[in-house]
């Protein structure tokens, strides 16, 4: 008899949609409703052949299946033996697991970092310089009459963003939905998102900083050059005029600006544009966070340690210095001699040289499915999927915390991340105690 579960929270992207319906029969997911393609696959693929079901340890180059006890013991040995372990990943698991991660990192004197390092790290650095004017997504749904997507393509990475939050929905003050709003897209390609825009600005690669500066000048009435980043002055002035006449501007930006050119300086500039616009009207800005709980990682890390990512516990207290204590850098300097990777696949997603350093050290991988990282790990521990088989908290891209639901039992013997990590921590403490 199929069962329909409502108000299910999707554990994929930063949209963290919580209005899904999931149809379950015999402890299997048959269908999801109100979901985008990315989220649907997440639910349906929770049970494919590459799902990890038993712990394994590498012995003489080959994987050998072992008990959970042996696996967590071996994991602890690797981490305790290391002088500078790295604990990385985290953005695709729930907050209670992250809290155990902080405790483990503190116990080990480890570097504690997540995908922010290679995603919106520059955004964090920028807002640590100039602050940020932002709001929750519902404020945008209800108030925004000008929506700008800069250097991001939600139709491919956050598919329901426009329909659930920003452009299409009817809001309290925008009763006619899209008709009450103007959509502007700035990108180097005419993306699917750009094709929906009222105004598309095809900026030249690496010219975002200049274009933002041009807007900051234009809104203050200064004359800008004939072309900035390939955009003609008339267009810049036209958009600046629309900005000043709007009642509530919402700007979203993504990896198009964090990963290129001036990186954090570009973000600094666009955050400053948002602030400058307050001389004329209301303006908010929001980074398009990729993973469903990358924001949650930043929140937990910040409240427990004082710092949002790239936290180094090697001195017994937390230190923060991205560029020094961030994952790619500690790997490239060859400092890390063991790694614990939780719910992430850095071997697939890090640049080549960084992955070589990662592959030269023992890796403990905790994940739900096989990945390129589990392929090269020394210890692999299967984990239950947060949001499907485990409850917990996740923070949406606008910092709204939503409780993930458990709608299915995990495969037999497969534990939540938080329990696995607690057992690793227990073993680490025991080994350290024995060493004394």
């Amino acid at each position, binding site marked *: 008899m199929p069962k329909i579960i409502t108000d299910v929270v999707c554990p994929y992207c930063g949209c963290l949609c919580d209005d899904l319906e999931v149809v379950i029969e015999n402890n299997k997911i048959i269908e999801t409703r109100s979901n985008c*393609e*990315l989220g649907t*696959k*997440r639910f349906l*693929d929770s049970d*494919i052949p*590459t*799902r990890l079901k038993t712990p394994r340890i590498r012995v003489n180059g080959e994987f050998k299946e072992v008990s959970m006890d042996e696996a967590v013991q071996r994991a602890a040995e690797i981490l305790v033996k290391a002088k500078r372990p790295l604990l990385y990943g985290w953005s695709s698991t729930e907050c209670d697991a992250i809290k155990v991660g902080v405790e483990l990192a503190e116990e080990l004197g480890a570097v504690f970092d997540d995908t922010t*390092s*290679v995603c919106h*790290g*520059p955004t964090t*650095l920028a807002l640590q310089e100039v602050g940020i004017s932002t709001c929750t997504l519902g404020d945008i749904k209800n108030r925004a009459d000008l929506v700008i997507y800069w250097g991001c*393509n939600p139709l*491919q*990475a956050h598919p329901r963003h426009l329909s659930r939050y920003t452009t299409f929905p009817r809001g309290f003050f925008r009763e006619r939905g899209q008709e009450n709003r103007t959509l502007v897209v700035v990108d*180097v*390609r*005419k*993306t*699917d998102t*750009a094709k929906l825009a009222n105004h598309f600005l*095809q900026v030249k*690669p*690496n010219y975002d900083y200049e274009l933002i500066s041009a807007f900051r000048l234009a809104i203050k009435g200064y004359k800008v050059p004939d072309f900035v980043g390939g955009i003609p002055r008339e267009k810049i002035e036209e958009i600046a005029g629309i900005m000043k006449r709007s009642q509530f501007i919402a700007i979203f930006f993504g*990896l*198009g600006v964090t*990963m*290129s*050119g001036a*990186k954090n300086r570009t973000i600094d500039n666009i955050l400053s544009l948002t602030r400058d616009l307050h001389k004329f009207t209301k303006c908010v800005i929001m980074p398009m966070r990729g993973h469903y709980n990358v924001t949650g990682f930043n929140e937990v890390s910040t409240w427990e340690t004082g710092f949002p990512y*790239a936290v180094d516990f090697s001195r017994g207290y937390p230190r923060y210095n991205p*560029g020094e204590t*961030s994952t*790619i*850098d500690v*790997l*490239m300097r060859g400092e890390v*001699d063991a790694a614990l990777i939780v719910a992430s*696949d850095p071997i*697939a*997603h*890090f*640049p*080549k*040289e*960084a*992955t*070589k*350093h990662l*592959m*030269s*050290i*023992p890796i403990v991988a905790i994940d*739900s499915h*096989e*990945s*390129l990282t589990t*392929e*090269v790990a020394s210890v692999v521990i299967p984990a239950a999927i947060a949001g499907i088989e485990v409850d917990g908290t996740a923070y949406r891209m606008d910092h709204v915390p939503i409780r993930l639901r458990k709608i299915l039992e995990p495969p037999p013997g497969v534990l939540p991340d938080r329990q696995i990590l607690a057992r690793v921590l227990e073993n680490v403490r025991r080994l350290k105690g024995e060493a004394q």
Partner: protein
Amino acid sequence: MDTLKVILITGRTISQGTTREGKKKLREYLESTAICEFDPEDLGKLGIKEGEIVRIKTNDGTVVVRAKLSTQTPHPGIVFIPLGPWANEVIGSDTDSIGMPSFKSTPAEIEAAPHETILDALTLIRGRQATCQKS
């Protein structure tokens, strides 16, 4: 044209996103992620058709992937490879002292490579492993 100079950007797509979880060793992942999306004008300049194999070279490396016609056009002079191990073959690890590598807007050169084979993800990774020491 033998060599096309372009700007390379990497990023997310739906099909990369739906094939990355637990499918990295599968054909689906290779087909969605070991690709390079071209503006039709650039395909024309290179003298190749969609589906043919190309070699992309940056200061940081070389990789062989399949050419695809982009749906996010126009963008002449820019090519797009989805985030993943193929893109990362040609992305440097320098973080400009802020922790973030330059995943986007890297200068690159592209050539047709009709006789090359695209490595599957696992082979690609093993290749890297062979060039580093395991402790």
